[in-house]
C-alpha cells in the first residue's frame, strides 16, 4: 500500500502553520491588529452615542415622508394615525380614502370619528378607566399633505375625545457637534 503523496499546504497565518512550513524559518507571521482596533474603537463610540435603550417606539410607514423639526419632545407609545396622499390609517387599519371631495370642507370626518371613538371605547372597556395618556394620539402626516386635510384629521380627533394631539416629526440633528 502506497503512502499518500505530500500535498502543498496553503500558507496559514499565525500559530496554525504546519510544521512543514515553519521548519524552514522560525519567523511567526502575525496580523497587525492595532489599526483595526483603532477603527473599531471609533465605530464603537459612534454606535454607543446612537444607542437607544427604548428601541423604535413608532413605526413609520414607507408610504409617507415625515417632516423634520428641531423639537426635543420624545415620542411615546400612543394610538397611531397615519395620513398620506391616498388613505388615512388608524392603528394599521385603513379607514378613509383621501379623495378630492374630502378636501372640500374643514370639518371632522365622520368615519374617522367613529373609528376613533370605537378605539377609545375599547381602551376604556379593557382597562376599566381612561387615563390622560389614553386621550393622546400620534399623527404621522406626509410632507405633502394639504393643511385642510390636517385640519379635518385634527378636528376628528378632537371630536372623538383625543385632546392631546401630537404631530410626529423626524428630529433634525445639527452637524455642529450636538443636537439642537
Amino acid at each position: 500500500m502506497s503512502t499518500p503523496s505530500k500535498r502543498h499546504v496553503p500558507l496559514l497565518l499565525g500559530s496554525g502553520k504546519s510544521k512543514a512550513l515553519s521548519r524552514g524559518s522560525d519567523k511567526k507571521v502575525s496580523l497587525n491588529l492595532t489599526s483595526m482596533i483603532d477603527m473599531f474603537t471609533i465605530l464603537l463610540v459612534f454606535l454607543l452615542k446612537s444607542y437607544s435603550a427604548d428601541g423604535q417606539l413608532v413605526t413609520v410607514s414607507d408610504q409617507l415622508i415625515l417632516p423634520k423639526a428641531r423639537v426635543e419632545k420624545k415620542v411615546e407609545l400612543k394610538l397611531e394615525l397615519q395620513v398620506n396622499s391616498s388613505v388615512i390609517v388608524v392603528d394599521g387599519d385603513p379607514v378613509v380614502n383621501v379623495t378630492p371631495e374630502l378636501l372640500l370642507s374643514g370639518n371632522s370626518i365622520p368615519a374617522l370619528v367613529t373609528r376613533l371613538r370605537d378605539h377609545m371605547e375599547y381602551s376604556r372597556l379593557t382597562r376599566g378607566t381612561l387615563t390622560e395618556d389614553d386621550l393622546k394620539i400620534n399623527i404621522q402626516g406626509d410632507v405633502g399633505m394639504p393643511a385642510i386635510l390636517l385640519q379635518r384629521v385634527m378636528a376628528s380627533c378632537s371630536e372623538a375625545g383625543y385632546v392631546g394631539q401630537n404631530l410626529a416629526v423626524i428630529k433634525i440633528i445639527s452637524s455642529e457637534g450636538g443636537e439642537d
Partner: protein
Amino acid sequence: MAKAVSARSRTSKHPPEIDLLPVMNLFCCIIPFLLFSATFLEVVVIEMAATEGINSGGGGATANLMRSEEDRLQPKIIITEQEIFIGTASGSAHVGYAFETELNGEMVVSFPWDSLSMKLTEVHDLLTEAYPQIEFHKITVLTVEETRYDNIIVAIDLAGAVGFDQPGLQVAPSASVNSAMAGGGN
C-alpha cells in the same frame, strides 16, 4: 559546574506586545449588537392644541381664543398662497413672499424662514417687555387650505425655538384669509 543562565540572556530581543485578540473578540460581539439597537432616525413629537372644525366663514376655533389675556394677545403666523405674515392683537406685519423651490425633484412652495424667525423673536421680545407678568407660550398658525404640511411644521418649529411652544392650527378658506389680510393693519 554549569553556569547559571544570566538574566540578560533571558530577556527577549523584541518588546512585549499586548495580545489584542480578546479585545477584537469583544468588539466583534458588541458592534453587531449596537448596530441592531442603534436608531439613526429619531422620531419626536410636536404637541398641538386641540383643533376644531372650521365653518365656511373661516371663523372656526377663534371664538375660543378669548379666554385669557395670553389668549387675547397670542400672535398668529398667517400663511397664504403668496405671503407670510405675523399677526398680533395690535395688527399684522408682513414677513416675506412665497417662492418656489425644488424638493426631491418636485417644485414646491416655500417661504423665507429666516425672516420669520427674526420677526418671531422680535414679537416675543416685545410681548415679554410689554407684559412681563405673562409668559407667552401660545401661538396659532392660521393658514389657507392648500398649504403644505412641511411648511406648517417649519413655522411651528421656528415658533417653538423662540419660545412659543404651544402651537395651535387654524385653517380658513383662501378668500377669507386674503380678504382679512388685505384689510389688516401693519
